[in-house]
C-alpha cells in the first residue's frame, strides 16, 4: 500500500523532516499506526500464521476435500448471495419510495427502516421464531400450518430485515445526489419515465447497487448470531468456527476455517475499495440542481408503496413482538402479563452484564469516535508514508468477520508479549487478563467501530475546504489547535454519527466478543444468546428491550452533549 516514489529517498527524508518539526503530528501518526498494527493487523497475522502452521496446513486439505465442509462453504456463499440480493432489492425499494414517490408517511417509514440498526443480533431472529416458527403465533396459531422456519429461508428473512438498512441508506444517498437535470434532459429528448429509469437512473445507480450487494454479502457471511439461533441444519462457516472453538476447543481448526471465510470477505473488501469507487459516476458531494421528478403512474406507485408498507408492517410486528414478549410469561405459549422477565434480568443474571457492557461501550465510544476523526484527518489532509496503509488497516477492523477478530485476539493476547523479561503487552484476554479481560473487549469494540467513524469523518473532511485549516495555521495556530478549534467543530455531525455508531455497535456486537467474555466481564449479547439457546425467550426479549433502551438513551445523551453545543454543521453552508 505504501507508494514508493521515484525519488523515494529524498521524499522520505523530507517527510521525516516535516514530521520532526511537528512532534504532535508525528505522535498522532505513530500512535494511530501502532494502534492499527497491534489491535488489527497483529491478530490477523497471528490467525493466518496459526492456520498455516504445521498442524494447520493438513487441515486445509482435510476441510476443503470433506463433503461436510464443502456444504458449509457453499451454504455460506448461497446465504450471502441471497441476503445480498434480497436486501439490496428491499433497500432500493425503500430508497425509491423516499426519493421518487410522493406518498404519505415517508418520515415514519424512514424511522422504521432505521430501527434494525440499534437492535441486538438475536432480537429479530427470536421474534421471527415466535411468530413464524413451528409453534408460531401466526403460522400455527392463525394460519394453522406447521412451518419450519429454521434454515435458509428463515436466515434470509431475518438477515434481510436486519441488514437492509445499509443498502437503503447507501442507495438513498446516491439517488438524492443524482442530478435531476439528467432526468430532465432525458425527458426533453422524449424518453418516457420507464425508459429514463432504465437508461439513465439505473446505470448511474449500478455502482451503488453493486456496493450494497457486496456490503450485505459480507454482513451475511460474517454474521454469527442469526445462524446460531435460526440456522437449524443449515450450517454456515461463522457458526462452525464458533462450534469449533466453544465445543471442540480446536483453535487451529477454527483458524483454518477463519482463513477460508476470510477469502470471500477480503475479496469483497478489495472489490469495494479499488473497483466500485473507481466506477462510481455519481458524485455524492455535488449539489443537485432542480427538484427530482416524482413517479405518478398509479400502478407503479401503489405497488411499490404497498410492498414497502408490507415490509414496514413486518418490522413493526417483529419489534412489537419483542416488546410484548418481554412482558409475558412464555412468548408464543403463555401470554400472561408479567414483570418477571425484567426482574430476572435486572436484578438477577443481567445486572452485572448491563453495567459491564454499558461501561465498556461508553469507554470505547469516545476512543473510537476520536480515533476515527484523527485518522480521517491524517488520511485526508496529511501526506506521510503509509497513509493509504493506515486507511486500509483501519478498515480491516470491520472488513474482517468478527469471529475472526475474536480468534485472532485469543491467539495473540492470551499470553503476555515481550522481549526477554520485558513485557510489552500483558495478557489481555481471559479471566486472568488485565481488568478481567475487559481491555481486550474494549479494544475489539473500538476496532469494530473506528472504520465507520473514519468513513464518515473523511467524507465530511473532504467537503471542507482545506484553506479553512490553512487560514488557522497562517494565523499562528499549530496543527493540534487547528484540529481542536476548527476541524473537529466543523466535522461535528460526522463525529456525532461516529459516536452513535460506535456505541450502538459495541452494545450489540456478538461475533467478535463471544470468545472474549470472561467470568469477570459479562456482556449482554452473550447472555442473550444463552437465554435464547435455552429457550427462555421472555428473558431474551426483556434483555433486548433493555439493551435498545440503553442505546436510545445514549443516543439522546450524545446528541445533547456533542450535537447541541455550537451546531457548526448548520452554519457551514454560507461560510464558504
Amino acid at each position, binding site marked *: 500500500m505504501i*507508494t514508493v*516514489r521515484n525519488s523515494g529517498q529524498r521524499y522520505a527524508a*523530507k517527510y521525516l*523532516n*516535516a514530521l520532526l*518539526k*511537528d512532534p504532535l503530528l508525528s505522535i498522532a501518526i505513530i500512535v494511530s499506526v501502532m494502534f492499527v498494527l497491534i489491535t488489527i493487523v497483529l491478530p490477523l497475522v497471528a490467525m493466518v500464521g496459526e492456520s498455516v502452521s504445521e498442524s494447520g496446513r493438513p487441515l486445509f486439505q482435510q476441510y476443503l476435500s470433506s463433503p461436510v465442509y464443502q456444504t458449509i462453504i457453499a451454504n455460506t456463499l448461497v446465504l450471502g448471495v441471497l441476503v445480498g440480493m434480497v436486501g439490496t432489492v428491499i433497500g432500493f425499494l425503500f430508497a425509491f419510495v423516499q426519493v421518487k414517490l410522493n406518498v404519505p408517511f415517508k418520515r415514519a417509514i424512514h424511522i422504521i427502516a432505521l430501527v434494525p440498526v440499534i437492535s441486538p443480533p438475536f432480537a429479530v431472529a427470536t421474534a421471527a421464531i415466535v411468530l413464524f416458527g413451528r409453534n408460531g403465533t401466526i403460522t400455527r396459531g392463525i394460519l394453522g400450518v406447521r412451518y419450519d422456519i429454521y434454515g435458509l429461508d428463515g436466515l434470509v428473512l431475518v438477515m434481510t430485515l436486519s441488514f437492509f438498512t445499509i443498502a437503503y441508506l447507501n442507495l438513498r444517498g446516491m439517488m438524492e445526489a443524482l442530478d435531476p437535470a439528467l432526468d430532465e434532459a432525458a425527458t426533453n429528448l422524449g424518453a418516457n419515465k420507464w425508459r429514463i429509469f432504465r437508461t439513465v437512473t439505473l446505470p448511474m445507480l449500478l455502482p451503488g447497487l453493486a456496493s450494497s450487494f457486496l456490503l450485505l454479502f459480507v454482513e451475511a457471511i460474517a454474521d454469527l448470531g442469526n445462524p446460531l439461533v435460526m440456522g437449524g441444519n443449515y450450517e454456515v462457516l461463522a457458526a462452525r468456527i464458533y462450534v469449533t472453538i466453544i465445543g471442540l476447543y480446536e483453535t487451529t481448526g477454527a483458524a483454518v476455517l477463519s482463513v477460508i471465510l476470510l477469502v470471500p470477505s477480503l475479496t469483497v473488501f478489495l472489490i469495494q475499495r479499488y473497483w466500485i469507487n473507481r466506477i462510481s459516476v455519481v458524485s455524492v458531494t455535488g449539489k443537485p440542481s432542480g427538484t427530482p421528478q416524482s413517479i405518478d403512474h398509479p400502478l407503479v406507485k401503489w405497488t411499490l408503496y404497498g410492498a414497502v408498507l408490507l415490509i414496514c408492517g413486518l418490522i413493526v410486528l417483529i419489534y412489537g413482538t419483542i416488546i410484548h414478549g418481554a412482558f409475558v410469561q412464555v412468548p408464543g405459549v403463555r401470554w400472561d402479563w408479567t414483570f418477571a422477565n425484567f426482574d430476572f434480568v435486572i436484578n438477577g443474571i443481567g445486572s452485572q452484564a448491563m453495567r459491564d457492557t454499558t461501561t465498556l461501550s461508553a469507554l470505547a465510544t469516545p476512543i473510537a469516535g476520536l480515533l476515527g476523526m484523527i485518522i480521517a484527518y491524517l488520511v485526508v489532509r496529511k501526506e506521510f508514508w503509509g497513509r493509504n496503509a493506515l486507511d486500509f488497516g483501519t478498515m480491516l477492523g470491520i472488513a474482517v468477520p468478527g469471529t475472526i477478530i475474536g480468534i485472532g485476539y485469543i491467539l495473540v493476547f492470551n499470553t503476555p508479549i515481550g522481549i526477554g523479561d520485558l513485557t510489552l503487552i500483558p495478557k489481555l484476554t481471559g479471566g486472568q487478563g488485565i481488568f478481567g479481560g475487559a481491555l481486550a473487549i474494549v479494544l475489539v469494540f473500538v476496532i469494530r467501530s473506528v472504520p465507520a467513524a473514519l468513513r464518515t469523518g473523511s467524507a465530511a473532511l473532504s467537503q471542507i*475546504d482545506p*484553506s*479553512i485549516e*490553512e*487560514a*488557522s*495555521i*497562517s*494565523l*499562528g*495556530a*499549530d496543527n493540534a*489547535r487547528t484540529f481542536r*478549534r*476548527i476541524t473537529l*467543530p*466543523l466535522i461535528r455531525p460526522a463525529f456525532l454519527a461516529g459516536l452513535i455508531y460506535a456505541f450502538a455497535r459495541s452494545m450489540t456486537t456478538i461475533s467478535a466478543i463471544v470468545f472474549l467474555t470472561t467470568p469477570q466481564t459479562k456482556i449482554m449479547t452473550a447472555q442473550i444468546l444463552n437465554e435464547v439457546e435455552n429457550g427462555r425467550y421472555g428473558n431474551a426479549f426483556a434483555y433486548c428491550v433493555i439493551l435498545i433502551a440503553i442505546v436510545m438513551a445514549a443516543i439522546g445523551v450524545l446528541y445533547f452533549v456533542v450535537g447541541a453545543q*455550537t451546531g*457548526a454543521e448548520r*452554519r*457551514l*453552508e*454560507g*461560510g*464558504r
Partner: protein
Amino acid sequence: MQQRAVRLKLENVSKSFLDRDGKGHVQAVDHISLDIYSGEFLTLLGPSGCGKTTTLRLIAGFEHPTTGRILLDGEDITGQPPNKRDMALVFQNYALFPHMTVYHNVAYGLETRQMPRPQIQAKVAEVLKLIGLEGLDKRRPNQLSGGQQQRVALARSLVMEPRILLFDEPLSNLDAKLRVQMRSEIHRLQRRLGITSIYVTHDQLEAMALSDRIVVMNQGAIEQVGTPEEIYRFPTSRFVADFIGRANFIDRVPYQLVDDDRAEISLLGRKLVVPVRFPLRAGQHVTAMLRPEALVLREDASLMQVTIDEAMYLGSEVEYVVTFDQQRLVIVQQDPRISRIFKEGQTVGLDFLAEAVHLLPDQTVV
C-alpha cells in the same frame, strides 16, 4: 525603493510537484530569485498555472521548496513551519471559520498568541472599525455578503500586524463593481498601514492599480520585474507586452544603430530614432511595439492610408481595427467626443506617437 530594507528574499527557489499520475514532475516554480522591500506592495502577475499561488504558498510555508532558500529580514525561514512565520494569508475563497462569529474569526489569531482578553477586544474593535465592519461582529460568515466576508478575511489578517501580508486573488470571487471598490480599499489600507504585501492576481488592471512593483511570471519563471509603468511601457518580452494591456507588434522592422542605446528605424512609412533597451546585434531586425492608444487615425493625405475594417464604439473610447501591410492593428481612440468617429470601410491616414514606440528583440527569426 533601493534604499529600503529587504524584507523577504527568495534565493533560487523552485518547487516541483509529482504529476497526478505519480510519474513525472511539474515544475511549478522554476528557480526564482526576488527581493521584496519593506513596506512595498508587490504583485505576482501571470496567466493561470504559471506558479503564482505556489510561489505565495512557498513564502507562507505551506509548500516546501525543492531548491533554494527563503529569508525573512535576513533570517533563513526555509524550514520554518507556516504557523511560526510572521505572515498572514488572505485566501481567494476567504476561508472564514464558518462556525465562528466575525468577532471570533478576527480574534482567533490573537487568542492563539494568548494575548490578554481586553487587549484582544480593543484590537478587534479597532480593526473592524478600520475596515468598516462595526456592528457586524456578532454575525456569522453566512450572514454576510461576499464583500463583507472579504473584509472579515482582510481584518483577520490585518489584526495580526504581520511582517508580510499575503493575498491570493482575494477579489476574484466578487462581482466587477465590488472588485473595483475593494481594490481601492486595499490600496488605501496598505498605503496607510505600510504593511509589506505580496499580492497574487491574474488581473493586470488590479496589479497596475495596486502595486509598487509587478512581477510578471510565465511557466514558473519570472519574465520581468518593474513598476507598473515600466512593465506597461517597456516590456522586455513579447509575452509581457501581450499580457499587460494590449499591444500591436510590427515584426521585422529594419534598423540602424545610431549609438549604443539608440537606433534608427523605419516604421509605418516614417523614419525615426528610438531608444534601445536591450543589446542589439548588427544585421538583425527588431520588433516594434505600439500600444493601441499610441496609434492615431487622422484624415491627412500625407500619411499612410489605411482602410478601417472594424469600428466599435465603447463609450469612453472607440476601437478600430485596420489592416496595414497584411498586419492587423488595433487602435484605440480616447474621448470620441472631440475627434471624429470614423466608419467601417472608410480610408484614413495612420499616424503614431513616436515616443511611444518600444523595441523588442525580433522573435520571428530563430
